[in-house]
């Protein structure tokens, strides 16, 4: 693709809920195949920014472009069809369905149909393969278990598999690691690295700074909805504003 046009670009996007300014005039760019980390204290507007980019929330002002195309205010399903997939911070499985059946819904999307050349193919088989890719052991039949009976670690992987099922060019992971043990995080990191290797751009929102800095190309810091710093992990952590923001909040 064209290297001059960024994959994703926001210019001064803002969103307020009632009186609260959740995202305040944030501008950032993401290149093709890049991994951008977004960090910030709780309530700093990270999830809202994801919701703005993915169309779940409409901005009050500002502009969002994907491959140079203005997608501001588009419906979520249209944004997905361009190739942007996301995970939810709060996992949202279909609890009564077997894990692999959860993937039928994204596999049914027009995007998957288009990429497959108009045919859907055997969705169940694709679903089982995807789950294996994110670490569901095939022999243990975990994929056939009802989602409601799975522990958090598997639900997070399922969430990741749902976004991968859409064969996106940009994946946005909203606190995928939160609530997971160190061992679980360590087992998911290679999956993300594999996605990068396939050339997908990734935005990761994380509180696990050590793991994030190891894989991120660049990190952006939000505080009270504003972008306060941007650069490598090391650079932003030495930033005065960032230090203040993190000292000022209770978490981390």
């Amino acid at each position, binding site marked *: 693709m064209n290297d001059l046009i960024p994959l994703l670009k926001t210019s001064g996007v803002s969103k307020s809920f009632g009186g609260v300014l959740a995202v305040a005039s944030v501008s950032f760019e993401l290149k093709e195949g890049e991994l951008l980390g977004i960090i910030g204290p709780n309530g700093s507007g990270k999830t809202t920014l994801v919701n703005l980019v993915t169309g779940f929330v409409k901005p009050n002002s500002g502009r969002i472009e994907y491959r140079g195309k203005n997608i501001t205010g588009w*419906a979520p399903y249209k944004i997905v069809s361009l190739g942007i*997939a996301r995970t939810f911070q709060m996992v*949202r499985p279909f609890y009564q*369905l077997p894990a692999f059946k959860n993937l039928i*819904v994204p596999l049914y999307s*027009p995007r998957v149909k288009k990429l497959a050349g108009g045919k859907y193919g055997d969705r169940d088989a694709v679903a089982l393969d995807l789950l294996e890719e994110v670490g569901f052991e095939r022999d243990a039949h975990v994929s056939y278990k009802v989602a409601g009976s799975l522990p958090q670690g598997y639900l997070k992987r399922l969430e990741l598999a749902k976004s991968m099922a859409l064969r996106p060019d940009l994946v946005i992971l909203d606190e995928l690691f939160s609530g997971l043990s160190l061992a679980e995080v360590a087992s998911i990191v290679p999956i993300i690295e594999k996605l990068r290797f396939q050339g997908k751009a990734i935005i990761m929102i994380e509180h696990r700074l050590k793991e994030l800095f190891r894989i991120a190309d660049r990190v952006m810091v939000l505080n009270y909805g504003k972008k306060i710093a941007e650069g490598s992990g090391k650079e932003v952590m030495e930033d005065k504003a960032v230090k203040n923001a993190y000292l000022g909040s209770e978490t981390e």
Partner: protein
Amino acid sequence: MKRRKERIDRGIKARSEDIFALSSYREMFYLLVPRAIPVVGLLGVAPFLSPYWKEVFISTAVYALLAISWDLLISAGLVSLGQSLFYGIGSYVAGALNYYWGWSPLFTIPVATLVGGVLCTVMLLPVLRLRGIYFAMVTLVLPLMLMRLVEATRILGGTEGLTGLTPFPNPVTSFYIIQIALLIALFGFRRIIDSDYGLVIRGINDNDRSVMSAGINIYWYKTQILFLGASVGSFAGAFGTHVDMFAGMPGFALDYSLLPVASAVVGGMGTFAGPMIGAFILVPLSEVLRALGALRIVFYGLFLVVFIVALPEGIFPYMQRKYHQFERWVEIE
């Protein structure tokens, strides 16, 4: 020698082994019997019914269709308190085509099914985004508004309605038409909801944001389901109009809205067979209770409460569970 009760779930075995299930006659039989019951039950009873009960059976099937349509809508998270909208529109479309242009029921019913489905969908389109109780309120109010509109403007026969419409050639024809339509709706809807398409529909009800993030336009899917449900309801109205030889304001009556909901709750929501069974209990029950005069509604209410308290999951899910699980005594040691 001691004995204990062992519980076996036949259903899981037969269902999970799909193909293999058919390898044994016993398991094939086991899967076929529950499907044969409604077919034999609806089509086979005709010769044994008196003309009066035949009529009751016909109107029961009309309510059962409305209940199945209600169940389809609820599977996509659309709570309808206005099944009478579908019934009334279907009834007026068929009635008008027959009354003003003399079309035969052979044409009025299919046309009313489609046109009714489209009209109802268009009317509800603006509120399709509303969830739960908000959508429900609009569906409840709309038929009542249309009823008053007919009264005030005197269109379509006003309060008198359209009378003297063409009846079916004989009661037997109408009997089979409605029972076969009911079977098609029952098996068709069950098949749809069990498919991958149905999974998406149920997903919308369960967790709409998750479906949206999967790149699916949930409003388009809701529109499709609304059209399907409204068409089935309009078919019921068009059919009922030719049975009664009359189309009028009673088509928008609350009965057509509330009985389907009660049937679905009693029979078991989300199963299609449940709402149908519910209608086949509640409608004849209401006929039997007619003898009680003014006390009818009291006893009717009592029955409803008893059903709901005794089997909160619904009759059909209960029967289904009992059929799949059976207990047997086994000897230990």
